[in-house]
C-alpha cells in the first residue's frame, strides 16, 4: 500500500479548518468533496494569467484558454477511457447531463407506450428527469426494486425488460446505500433487450471502475465537485453514434454552425451539446483534480477506501442499537445508519458541535426511504483523504451524543 494518508491530507488545505473549536472531521464526501491545493492553484492561475473566452478568439489568451479547455477534455476522455474526445461533453453536473439525455434521447426515441426503466435506489436527479420525459412523451415509467440488503432485484429487472424498453438508467453506486450495482451485467441485459443505457456515475467514477468502453455504457454522467474538482462542472459521456442520433438540447453560442432567419444548422460533436459560453475554468480545474488522482495507482486508492469502509462498518456495528442501511454484496464509500431512539437530524446536528460533518435526511433518495420505511438516515461518506482517526472521531462523537441525550 503506497497511499500515504498524511501526505494526502496535507494536500487539502480545508482539512486544517476548525469547527466549533474542534478540528474538522469531514465525512460528507458523498455530497461534495474537498479540493487539493493543486486544483485551487489551477483556478487562480487561470484567472490571473489567461482568462478568456474560448473557441472564437483570434488572440493569444483565447488560444491559451481554448487549449487548456480542450486538453482538459482529453484528460477526462482518458480517465474514463472514451474512444474519442468528441464523446466528452461538459455540463454543469450529473443532474444536467441526465436531463440532457432524458430530453434529447426522449425527443428522438421515446414514444407513447414505450417503457423507461430506472431503479428505486436512484437519486432524484436520475429519477425525476425520467418521470418528466415519460409524462411528456406518454411513456411508462418503470422501476426496479432492491432487496433488504440493498441489492438490485435483477430478477424483477429481467421481467420488466421487453421490446418496449427504450432506455434503462441506473446509478453505478448508490449515494444512500453504497451499493455497487453490477453495471456490466445490467448493461448487457438492457442491450440484449435492445435498450440504451445511462449510467449515473456520480458516486462511482471516483471510487470504483470507470472505463466506459469496458462497461459498454451508452451514456455516462458524473459531477466534477464529487471527484475533487470545482463546482459547476460535470461530464456527459455518450457513444458518438448516440450523440449523433439525438437532437441538440439547448440552443445558442458554441453549438451552432450557420444561423439564418429561415434555418439553423448545428455544430459538430462535442460542441453540438455545449450551448453558450461554458464554465471555462471548470474543465480545467477538473482536469487538475484528475491529474492529482492519477498520481496514485487507482487500485491502491480503491483498496485504501475499501479498507477504511470495512473498518468504519466494524466500528459502527459495535454501537448498541445502531442499524446500518446498505449491506449489498459489493459496496463502497457510504456508511448510512440510524440509532434506535435518536432522530437522524438530532444526531447529525449534535455531531456537528463536535466538528464531525455528516449528512442527514433522505439524501435525495426518497423512494429508498419509502422502501425502507424510514424518514432518513445519518450518512458518513468517505473520500481518499479520510483515515481511521476520522472514523474514530465519528464513533466517539456518537457516544458523546448518546450521553447528551441522557441515554
Amino acid at each position, binding site marked *: 500500500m503506497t497511499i500515504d494518508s498524511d501526505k494526502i491530507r496535507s494536500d487539502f488545505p480545508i482539512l486544517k479548518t476548525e469547527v466549533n473549536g474542534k478540528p474538522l472531521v469531514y465525512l460528507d464526501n458523498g455530497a461534495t468533496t474537498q479540493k487539493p491545493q493543486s486544483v485551487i492553484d489551477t483556478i487562480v492561475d487561470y484567472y490571473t494569467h489567461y482568462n478568456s473566452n474560448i473557441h472564437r478568439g483570434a488572440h493569444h489568451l483565447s488560444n491559451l484558454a481554448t487549449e487548456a479547455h480542450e486538453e482538459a477534455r482529453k484528460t477526462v476522455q482518458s480517465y474514463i477511457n472514451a474512444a474519442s474526445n468528441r464523446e466528452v461533453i461538459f455540463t454543469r453536473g450529473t443532474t444536467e447531463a441526465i436531463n440532457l439525455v432524458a430530453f434529447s434521447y426522449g425527443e428522438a426515441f421515446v414514444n407513447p407506450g414505450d417503457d423507461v426503466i430506472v431503479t428505486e435506489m436512484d437519486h432524484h436527479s436520475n429519477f425525476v428527469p425520467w418521470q418528466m420525459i415519460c409524462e411528456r412523451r406518454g411513456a411508462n415509467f418503470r422501476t426496479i426494486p432492491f432487496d433488504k440488503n440493498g441489492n438490485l432485484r435483477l430478477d424483477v429487472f429481467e421481467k420488466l425488460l421487453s421490446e418496449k424498453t427504450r432506455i434503462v438508467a441506473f446509478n453505478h453506486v448508490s449515494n444512500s446505500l453504497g451499493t455497487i450495482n453490477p453495471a456490466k451485467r445490467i448493461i448487457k441485459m438492457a442491450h440484449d433487450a435492445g435498450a440504451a443505457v445511462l449510467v449515473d456515475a456520480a458516486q462511482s467514477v471516483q471510487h470504483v471502475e470507470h472505463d466506459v468502453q469496458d462497461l459498454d455504457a451508452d451514456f455516462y454522467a458524473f459531477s466534477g465537485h464529487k471527484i475533487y474538482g470545482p463546482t459547476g462542472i460535470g461530464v456527459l459521456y455518450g457513444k458518438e453514434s448516440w450523440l449523433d442520433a439525438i437532437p441538440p438540447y439547448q440552443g445558442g453560442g458554441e453549438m451552432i454552425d450557420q444561423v439564418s432567419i429561415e434555418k439553423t444548422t448545428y455544430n459538430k460533436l462535442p460542441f453540438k451539446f455545449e450551448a453558450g459560453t461554458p464554465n471555462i475554468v471548470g474543465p480545467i480545474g477538473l482536469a487538475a483534480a484528475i491529474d492529482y488522482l492519477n498520481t496514485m495507482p487507482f487500485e491502491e486508492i480503491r483498496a485504501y477506501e475499501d479498507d477504511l469502509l470495512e473498518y468504519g462498518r466494524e466500528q459502527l456495528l459495535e454501537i448498541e442499537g445502531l442499524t446500518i442501511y446498505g449491506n449489498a454484496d459489493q459496496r463502497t464509500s457510504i456508511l448510512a445508519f440510524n440509532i434506535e431512539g435518536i432522530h437522524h*437530524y438530532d444526531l447529525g446536528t449534535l455531531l456537528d*458541535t463536535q466538528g464531525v460533518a455528516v449528512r442527514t435526511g433522505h439524501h435525495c433518495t426518497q423512494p429508498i426511504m419509502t422502501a425502507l420505511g424510514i424518514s432518513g438516515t445519518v450518512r458518513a461518506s468517505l473520500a481518499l483523504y479520510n483515515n481511521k482517526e476520522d472514523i474514530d472521531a465519528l464513533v466517539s462523537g456518537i457516544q458523546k451524543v448518546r450521553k447528551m441525550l441522557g441515554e
Partner: protein
Amino acid sequence: MASIRENQAEIVEDFSFLPQWDERYSYLIELGQKMEPLPEAFKVEDNIVRGCQSTVWLHRECRDGRVILEADSDSLIVKGLAALLMKVFSGQPAEDVLKAELTFFEETGLDKHLSSQRANGLMAMIEQIKTFAVKCAEEK
C-alpha cells in the same frame, strides 16, 4: 403575562449563560422534553409543517382573540425550537402575534447555526403561526 418582547429577551438571556453550542443544544432538547405532550388526535396531516427534515405537528387554536399553540416533533432539537416559539407566542393576543418581530434567532446566533433547511422549517412554522393569527384576529 409577559409580552412577546419580554419572552424573547428572556430566551436571549438564557442562551447567554451557555457559551458552548453543545450546552445550548442540550438546553434546547430539555425545553422540548418539558413540553406538554401533543394529543395523538392533533397529529394529523393538516397540522404537519413542511420544510423540515423532521416532522413537526403544529396545533393552533384561537381563544378570546389569543393564539394558543401546541407542537411536537420526532426530532428533539426541532421540538426544542418549537418550544421556543410556543414560549414566545402561545397565549398572546393575535394582534400582537401579527405585529411581532422575531429577533431572538439572530440574537442567540441560532439563525447562523441552524442549516438553512432547518431554518426553512422554522420559517414555515412562523409563517403558519402568523397566518393563523390573521384569522384569529378577524374572529374576535
